[in-house]
């Protein structure tokens, strides 16, 4: 199942669905990295509101996405982690260290706008 990625100004927004397989996540990584270059985006928001489970593979892949996007000069923000999912993540021991997180889409955009206001 492909993850929809929309362009909003100079940012890309990827909205993840619930039944995301490992393969879907890998495809997302490839797609985002490519589109960041093509669209010359400064930032990517990955909205995981619908993700009901975040396990070690998902967490690792999201970190890889953030790293690869940073190498291409853009920032990544993960938004929409649900309270129950966050709780399970810390129990499992996965912290998404090094990845910027925000409450929701609105906060994610606010963060990116702020980051680039400071830049220029």
């Amino acid at each position, binding site marked *: 199942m492909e993850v929809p990625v929309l362009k909003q100004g100079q940012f890309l927004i990827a909205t993840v669905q619930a*039944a*995301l*397989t*490992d*393969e879907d996540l890998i495809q997302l990584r490839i797609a985002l990295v490519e589109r960041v270059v093509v669209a010359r985006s400064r930032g990517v928001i990955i909205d995981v509101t619908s993700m*009901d*489970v*975040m*396990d*070690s*593979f998902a967490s*690792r892949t999201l970190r890889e996405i953030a790293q690869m996007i940073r190498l291409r000069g853009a920032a990544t923000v993960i938004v929409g982690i649900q*309270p*129950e*999912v966050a*709780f*399970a*993540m810390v*129990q*499992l*021991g*996965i912290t998404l260290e090094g990845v910027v997180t925000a409450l929701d889409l609105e906060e994610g955009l606010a963060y990116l706008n702020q980051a680039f206001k400071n830049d220029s």
Partner: protein
Amino acid sequence: MNESMRVLIASDQDIVTARQKGRTLASSLGFLATDATLIATAISELARNIVTYAKKGELSIRSVETRSQQGIMIVAKDEGPGIQNIESALRDGYSTSGSLGLGLPGVKRLMDEFEIVSVVGVGTTVTVKKWKN
């Protein structure tokens, strides 16, 4: 109430199926949102281990009951290579492929009871339980 289900694990799609079914059963047994998520996450990790290390196996999810408690039990079974050093695998930070390894310490934290039997060359069975209270 004695509900149970078996999911054959052979692909990453099966991992998703297993955790969705697990969540559904957990909810129907009366587990609240947070616990249902912990259970689904544990299932995801166990199923993924099967796919990664044994290529295929099976997961059974069923309700369990004692005289004072109700809960859920998950058995992840495979006929894969088995784990050489179970003790190391159960220690945090242990890694076989530069990743988070088997994630077994994490699964142990998510659930209330954890049991593992693994024989090199024969296979691995992990049994976990979570109680409602």
